[in-house]
């Protein structure tokens, strides 16, 4: 007995693997970012940019596969949702990875190796990495409960970010104009990781859509 649409199912599975691979590679970018903070080695920051090229290529590849599947296979129901979800999640991951590039560029340009700054990046990235890891696990297992749990963790990241902002404002009050300007830049840099957390929320929404076919607004 020939199983129906076996080749199509294989292609769908491959698309899923690519999204998971993209998640892994994006996670590696944040690992590198933390390493840059710990070692103050700017060569590692350059590697983040190289890593991003790979992530962008994966996104393009997922887009091409998804478009071809839609054009050639006429997907419907859960098959269609799976393809749409792959497209959307890959787009979120690409943005998430871009933030590490922005931070790396800032580090290379300013050679900012202020311990407090590096510590802030590390602590926010650590919280974020845990979120990213678990949201990709939720995607792989199609686990809505886990996706919603991870979404709640975004509050922890937001709180940590706000705490950091408050501390920066406190410092800025007694600082020179130049130091205030620098603090503003640091604020923008740290905001990138906070934004990455929002993209995880978007991924959670897509997992709910994939599994239940329902559109939810979690953010």
């Amino acid at each position: 007995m020939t199983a129906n649409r076996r080749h199509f199912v294989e292609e769908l599975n491959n698309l899923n693997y690519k999204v998971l691979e993209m998640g892994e590679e994006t996670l590696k970018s944040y690992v590198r970012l933390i390493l840059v903070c710990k070692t103050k080695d700017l060569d590692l920051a350059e590697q983040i940019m190289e890593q991003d090229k790979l992530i962008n290529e994966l996104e393009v590849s997922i887009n091409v596969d998804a478009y071809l599947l839609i054009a050639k296979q006429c997907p419907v129901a859960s098959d269609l949702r799976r393809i749409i979800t792959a497209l959307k999640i890959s787009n979120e991951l690409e943005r998430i990875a871009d933030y590490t590039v922005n931070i790396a560029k800032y580090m290379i340009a300013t050679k900012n190796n202020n311990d407090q700054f590096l510590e802030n990046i590390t602590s926010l990235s650590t919280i974020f990495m845990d979120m990213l890891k678990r949201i990709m696990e939720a995607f792989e297992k199609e686990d809505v409960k886990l996706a919603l749990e991870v979404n709640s963790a975004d509050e922890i990241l937001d709180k940590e970010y706000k705490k950091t902002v408050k501390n920066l404002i406190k410092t800025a009050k007694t600082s020179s104009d130049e130091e205030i300007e620098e603090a503003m830049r640091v604020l923008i840099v740290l905001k990138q990781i906070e934004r990455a957390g929002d993209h995880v929320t978007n991924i959670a929404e897509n997992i709910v859509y994939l599994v239940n076919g329902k559109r939810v607004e979690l953010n």
Partner: protein
Amino acid sequence: MENTVFTINNLNLYYDQFQALYGIDMKIKRNEVTALIGPSGCGKSTFLRCLNRMNDLIEGCNITGEVKFNEKDVYMNSYDVINLRTKVGMVFQKPNPFPMSIYDNIAYGPRCQGIKDKKVLDDIVKKSLTKAALYDEVQDRIKGSAMSLSGGQQQRLCIARAIAMEPEVILMDEPTSALDPIATLKIEELINDLKKNYTIIIVTHSMQQAARISDKTAFFLMGVLIENDSTNKIFTQPKNKKTEDYITGRFG
């Protein structure tokens, strides 16, 4: 082995005064599925039948140009047509099993070729049915009548019968148009599996079928080959406006 199975050069075909094909140039690669699409009367089935000289049987049919199979022009006077049709098998629109047992349907061709050894024939029958994804379904009634099989099974039997002759190419003329959607999907899966060992050229009225199963797609219109490219290209970025209009359902 040469990568190109068929090379068609400036092929023109006439049914008496009526010209059905105009200057077709095309190459067909080994172990690929090539789909021929186009509206009714566009010449796709006529073209398919040129490849194993099935048009020879039609009175008033005249052909000019070249159809090279493995680099030899099949329209040369000295060409062995029987051997051509062994190497280039064909499956038709309507399943047409012989009114005999499943076993005898498959063994018919090899027997005609002089194979008498029962063990060899048993082996051919089993292998052919397995390759056609039919063996598991019929193994306990292999000596039963082929006419008792469902339409989809009969069509897979016809594919098994073609495979038994160890062809290089299998031509399929709308092989699923008489089948229900599930039987159709089974044949499509089978085509995907078969391309590892065979070159398949299929005429289909279903554009979605062409998109799903083929590597290359050739679009015919009024006897002219309008566009021939990878299926990925044809269904995402066709070069010719006529192809785009046809596949998007704007005409046809």
